[in-house]
């Protein structure tokens, strides 16, 4: 890559495990062993099988070590992922088949191992199921390990001194092996917050940022980088100033986190006992455990688009039902809000059509109402998952009252279809909408009259209201969360909901911004749904303030006329009330 040497470059990814560190990068390119198909003579069969057997024995030894180490560091629950790999190595049928093929086909061991194991891997990858895809990665990991051992390549795991690992992706066993050395952080191009490696990094308390897309192309071994697992970014060639700022942030977070251990079990309410429903935004059922450990009271936004990842077509009712009931069961006795597919805009869609202006185009409820079969499949599957009465449905991108009415008719239709099949569901299931289009905000009272709850989606609402695309660097600074126009709109939505006797929540990024918490509570918000990692911080603020005072803050803020003025005011109020909060400057 062409760039001036030593220039500071910030790469933004997704925060996967909290923590901050700085050090030399180690670019880890996975050894994908080269497999050549070679013929062997009948006389060589015995030694070829011998090579295979000793490779298996070595692989098993390695895995036993990793397993023991994982058990000790992470507990037996998290170590279980390596048990499956050990069992595959010990699979007599599989190994028998491989040995038989070597003898019959007279081919080298690596080739037959790859060919035989790949057959199973392909069956797993064909399943429309994230769990099976994870198992396919396990199988892949075992296969590469055997082959590496057949080829006698020594397991790479020794690093010189402490490093930040930069890699395209990491397998759980890589994460573990590296953690035996001094690893300061993990940065990967691929992966989400739910990948095994991310979960392990959190358990190991090593900062991790995933989804960086280009880190392996930008960073070289030996480059100095800083990793910020709170903000989800890495900085290549950080300036002295950046390092100091991050160092301070690290200290503040460390002190703050020390004080948070005991609040996960507490209910989020203000000093004067106003209860705030503090819940989490997630995409996968595997995140439920982390959200609960962080102290969430349920899931305020489950993005069902996660069901479409890696799929060529929309999942069936049955597939969705399985997935949604896993979530509903996992969250019980708390509740979960499933947001119906929000496809279009920047979100994935299996049948995307080109649009000149996707954000103003065919997305959210508009797609769902135009695709009744798809919509009904999803509604039936959500309804079927609602038998424990802890499920709610939410519609994205609503801009007219007519859309709520039509969506409600679809829910009634889905219920009738289930009645005809004698399948149970919660007949009183609550139906809400996202308020993210300015028209819906202006008409909030009319919307509230037709919905059971409102949830403010700030990311889109702010973009639409201020006419700013925040991914466009030229105008990004105009994306102002505390723009008075935004705040007045939020107040209007909350008041409208309350006037109609329904609760109003917020599930956009603003809900998780500690600077906004006092203000939102003062405005009367009933629910905040945030990414799990910031949950303890937001809860701490709620526990530290009085609703009465927050209301005064909100009144005062609404007399102000600029984003900056409001930020300064909120920052001084929050610092004053909760001095230990480590703010991101």
């Amino acid at each position, binding site marked *: 890559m062409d760039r001036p040497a030593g220039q500071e470059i910030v790469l933004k990814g997704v925060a996967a495990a909290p923590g901050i560190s700085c050090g030399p990068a180690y670019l880890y390119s996975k050894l994908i062993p080269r497999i050549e198909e070679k013929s062997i003579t009948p006389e060589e069969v015995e030694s070829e099988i011998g090579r295979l057997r000793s490779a298996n024995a070595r692989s098993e030894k390695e895995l036993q070590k990793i397993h023991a180490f994982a058990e000790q560091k992470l507990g037996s629950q998290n170590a279980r992922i390596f048990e499956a790999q050990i*069992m595959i190595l010990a699979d*007599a*049928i*599989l190994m028998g088949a491989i040995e038989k093929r070597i003898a019959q086909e007279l081919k080298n061991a690596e080739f037959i191992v790859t060919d035989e194991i790949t057959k*199973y891997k392909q069956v*797993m990858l064909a*399943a429309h*199921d994230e769990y099976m895809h994870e198992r396919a990665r396990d199988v892949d990991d075992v296969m590469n390990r055997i082959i590496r051992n057949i080829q006698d390549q020594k397991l790479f795991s020794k690093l010189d001194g402490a490093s930040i690992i930069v890699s395209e992706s990491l397998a759980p066993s890589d994460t573990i092996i590296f953690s035996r050395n001094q690893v300061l952080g993990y940065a990967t191009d691929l992966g989400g917050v739910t990948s095994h490696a991310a979960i392990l990094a959190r358990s190991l308390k090593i900062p991790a940022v995933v989804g960086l897309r280009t880190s392996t192309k930008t960073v070289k071994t030996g480059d100095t980088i800083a990793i910020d697992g709170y903000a989800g970014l890495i900085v290549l060639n950080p300036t002295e100033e950046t390092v100091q700022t991050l160092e301070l942030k690290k200290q503040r977070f460390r002190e703050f986190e020390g004080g948070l251990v005991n609040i996960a079990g507490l209910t989020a309410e203000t000093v004067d006992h106003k209860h705030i429903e503090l819940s989490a935004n997630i995409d996968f059922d595997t995140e439920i455990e982390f959200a609960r450990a962080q102290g969430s009271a349920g899931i305020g936004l489950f993005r069902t688009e996660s069901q479409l990842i890696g799929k060529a077509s929309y999942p069936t009712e049955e597939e969705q039902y*399985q997935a949604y009931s896993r979530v509903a069961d996992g969250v019980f006795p708390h509740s979960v809000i499933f947001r119906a597919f929000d496809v279009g805009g920047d979100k994935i869609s299996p049948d995307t059509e080109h649009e000149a202006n996707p954000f103003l185009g065919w997305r959210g409820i508009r797609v769902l109402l135009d695709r009744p079969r798809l919509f009904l499949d999803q509604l039936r599957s959500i309804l079927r998952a609602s038998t424990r009465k802890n499920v709610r449905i939410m519609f994205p991108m609503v801009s007219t009252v007519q859309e709520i009415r039509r969506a409600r008719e679809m829910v009634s239709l889905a219920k009738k279809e289930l009645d005809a099949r004698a399948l149970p569901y919660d007949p009183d299931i609550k139906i809400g909408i996202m308020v993210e289009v300015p028209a819906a905000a202006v008409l909030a009272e009319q919307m509230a009259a037709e919905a059971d709850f409102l949830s403010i989606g700030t990311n889109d609402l702010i973009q639409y209201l201020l006419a700013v695309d925040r991914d466009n660097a030229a105008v990004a600074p105009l994306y102002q969360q505390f723009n008075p126009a935004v705040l007045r709109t939020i107040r209007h939505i909350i008041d409208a909901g309350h006037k109609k006797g329904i609760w109003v929540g917020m599930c956009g990024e603003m809900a998780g911004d500690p600077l906004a918490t006092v203000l939102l509570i003062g405005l009367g918000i009933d629910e905040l749904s945030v990414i799990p990692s910031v949950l303890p911080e937001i809860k701490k603020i709620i526990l530290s303030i009085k609703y009465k005072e927050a209301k005064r803050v909100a009144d005062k803020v609404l007399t102000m006329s600029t984003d900056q003025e409001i930020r300064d005011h909120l920052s001084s109020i929050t610092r004053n009330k909760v001095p230990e909060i480590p703010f991101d400057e």
Partner: protein
Amino acid sequence: MTERTVTIVNRKGLHTRPAATLVKTAARFQSDLTIRKDNLEINGKSIIGVMTLAAEQGSTLTLLFDGPDEEQACQAMEDLFRRGFDEE
């Protein structure tokens, strides 16, 4: 040859741990075990094979036993499925 159709009753389906229990049980008998699901057929004594089944709660499998102790093997396996692999 003994043939049985069984249903997965445990909530999480035939994931890694039940798969291991199934394979271990099959290994106690001399008889071969073939498991059929949809148009996939795998060896019930192979963990990697059983892992590919992706059998969720409610799905049905056909078990085919072949060997001197096929009756006993079939009995043991039916029990295991009925008990939901002792998972819950």
